[in-house]
């Protein structure tokens, strides 16, 4: 996890399933609570796999970020993760971007 001003970039690695979701959730929520985070970027460039548990994680964080008037962006999901995102419909609420730097700039 990295901060760019008030934007938190969460870079996930490996496989985001129900088992890993609890851990990820806690980590992000702690960071949101403890420092002034307004916007959140999920950097999925190194995430290999995600099932619908990941959708729960994304929507949960989207709600709390939205509550403080911030924005959420998803960066570089692979094809499998893109399909999960498409099925869930969350791309209607959360933009999907192919470039991390661009995403960060958008939120500055």
């Amino acid at each position, binding site marked *: 996890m990295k901060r760019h001003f008030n934007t938190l970039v969460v870079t996930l690695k490996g*496989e985001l*399933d*129900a*088992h890993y*979701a*609890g851990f990820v*959730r806690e980590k992000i929520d702690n960071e949101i609570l403890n420092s002034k985070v307004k916007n959140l970027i999920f950097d999925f460039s190194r995430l290999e*796999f995600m*099932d*619908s*548990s990941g*959708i*729960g*994680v994304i*929507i*949960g964080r989207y709600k709390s970020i939205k509550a403080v008037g911030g924005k959420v962006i998803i960066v570089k999901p692979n*094809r*499998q993760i893109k*399909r*999960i995102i498409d*099925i*869930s419909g969350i791309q209607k609420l959360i933009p999907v971007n192919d470039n991390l730097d661009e995403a960060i700039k958008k939120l500055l």
Partner: protein
Amino acid sequence: MDNYIKIEFKSKGVNESLARIVVAAFVSRLDPTLDELADIKTAVSEAVTNAIIHAYDDEEGVVYITCELNGKEVKVIVEDKGKGIEDVKQAMQPLFTTKPEEERSGMGFTVMETFMDTLEVISQKGKGTTVIMTKKIK
């Protein structure tokens, strides 16, 4: 049936990835595309997650997976002896979940249906749930 594998393991979250690895390794001999393999892995992940999270709540149970190859068809059966589903039709609706407090999205069955060719869910209250999915490798 050309070949099959059965696996059985405790309903622990740490075993979700194992289920995906085993099924993917087994199916890979049909020479699927990366997308087909990802579809099957994802559907298995959803079914196994449900068995771990919903079927046994916080108690420990056993999850059974059978994977069969018939020509170019893959059949995956995920079974638990957990609490069962009262209304299967309702459970299969997109966004329906009984565990919103755990941030379940209610998209598990929808993902299985979308990624596989067929999906059948058989459940009996108090007895358990069996999910049967098939997919033809092109």
